[in-house]
């Protein structure tokens, strides 16, 4: 539904987006991840036709945004960063304006506005000026606006930024509810959000795509993937660490101390599962285990490793 072809954007000598290409199909919720200033918003502004790319283009449902902007924009619902809306208007007037621009009038406009108002749960604030609404409601009005014409492609720039945990939960529920019929891109720097709503993630930094895969695939790149967390009494004993480290296929054994308590983290070589070996060893030595858990891998490790390329890849777990 959405195809990004070699997008490039430079501002003077600054290369903000550097040859970004990807496609998003129906049913996909793509998490667009990256540190601040990575070029996420700039990319979205080019896809939605707000900024003209220096090179490359985006094709939305077969319409090139550069050559046929009006046709392409009809298929897009866009929530710009910060969910801007006219502060003097009420959500009812604002949505009515959007409905008319989107080509709906009369009862059809009314029906669509009522539908999104119920879906996004803004019915009770429809007649208050937008400037008097809370952040959560403003953000919802922005989403309602993007959803009014039931677009095939939705582009949401930080849809949960600044919302409280309940509002975030609500927003994610809304996104999940509509994912099947649409191609959705969400930019965020919250990794929990990617795990909660996205079935695909792209990591960008300095304008380049550095990783592309499902959240689970990305997490697999983590050195913590299939690591085993062992908690037991007397784990400061160097013999225990040595025994664990002597097992085949073990890359390192680290002692960690975090809010969950003290534990040994056994990192396998190449992400191979090692829990069976560790369990056997524990039985053999008669250790009294308090806990044994396989880690899936941490998206934030992967994110940090990928986006901070060139910086020191120091021992993360020990410091944590």
């Amino acid at each position: 539904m959405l195809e990004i072809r070699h997008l490039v954007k430079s501002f003077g000598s600054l290369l903000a987006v550097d040859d970004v290409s990807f496609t998003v199909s129906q049913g996909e919720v793509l998490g667009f991840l990256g540190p601040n200033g990575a070029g996420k918003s700039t990319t979205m502004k080019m896809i939605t036709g707000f900024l003209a790319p220096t090179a490359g283009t985006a094709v939305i449902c077969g319409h090139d945004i550069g050559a046929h902007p009006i046709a392409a924009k009809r298929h897009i619902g866009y929530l710009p960063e910060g969910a801007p809306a006219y502060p003097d208007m009420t959500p009812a007037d604002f949505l009515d304006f959007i409905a008319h621009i989107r080509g709906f009038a009369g009862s059809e406009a009314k029906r669509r506005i009522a539908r999104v108002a119920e879906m996004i749960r803004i019915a009770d604030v429809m007649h208050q000026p937008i400037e008097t609404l809370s952040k959560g409601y403003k953000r919802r009005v922005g989403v309602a606006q993007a959803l009014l014409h039931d677009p095939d492609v939705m582009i949401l720039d930080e849809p949960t930024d600044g919302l409280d945990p309940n509002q975030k939960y609500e927003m994610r529920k809304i996104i999940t509810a509509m994912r099947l019929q649409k191609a959705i891109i969400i930019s965020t720097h919250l990794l929990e959000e990617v795990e909660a709503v996205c079935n695909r993630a792209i990591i960008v930094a300095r304008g380049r795509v550095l990783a592309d895969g499902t959240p689970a695939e990305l997490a697999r790149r983590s050195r913590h993937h299939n690591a085993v967390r062992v908690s037991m009494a007397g784990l400061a004993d160097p013999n225990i660490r040595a025994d664990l480290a002597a097992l085949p296929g073990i890359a390192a054994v680290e002692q960690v101390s975090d809010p969950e308590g003290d534990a040994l983290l056994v990192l396998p070589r190449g992400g191979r599962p090692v829990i069976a070996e560790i369990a056997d060893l524990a039985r053999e030595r008669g250790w009294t285990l308090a806990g044994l858990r396989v880690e899936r891998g941490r998206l934030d490790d992967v994110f940090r490793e990928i986006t901070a390329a060139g910086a020191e890849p120091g021992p993360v777990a020990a410091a944590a």
Partner: protein
Amino acid sequence: MRNVLTIFRRELTGYFTTPLAYVFIVIFLALAGILTFFVGNFFERGQADLQPFFNFHPWLFVVLIPALSMRLWAEERKSGTIELFLTLPIRMTEAVIGKFLAAWCFAGIALALTFPFWITVNFLGQPDNGVILASYIASWLMAGAMLAVGACVSAITKNQVIAFVVTAALVFVFTAAGSSIVLGVFEGWAPEWLTHGIAQMSFLGHFSAITRGVIDMRDLVYFLSIIIAFLGANAILVDLKKAE
């Protein structure tokens, strides 16, 4: 065309949802009254016409029209709504024209609300209502030209105060272009065709020509071309500056 109408409607109601519309209309009517009756010696002249009323319009507009145009684009850029607005399926020309027409229509409403002056003068004597109608048209055309200049300036800045001041300065120069204030700067060193050309660009000259009661094609074309030229520049500037 339908989009122009939708944008026009939103913008026009936008004036009335804030106090701006009411403050503007009250101040405009009050100033017009004071200038006409006290400074313009409306009664002492002993003539049944609205000339003292219209004579002050250019100078009144220099101060007041920028207040209408300053928000057109600067506010959209400041609040970020421009990103929403320009990613809707509309053409830039539709956006520019819709906004301009709303401001121009609002100026028309303010002008129309001066009808008590017209009633007064008809009550007191037998004025030439053709001349008065022509003068209203002249005044509205001049307001349109000033609004187009203002819309263009509003596209360059996020700051409405800057938009106001720069627009006021520009339309003052345009209004006074035929007077010695502006021409004095050029006289002596500039070639005569240039001084002559600048004098021809004066809002005031074309305005006064129509207020004499004759709507000359050249004056009409003049105001309409100013409007079109500045709206064209407006569209280009919005495109250039929108992302800053």
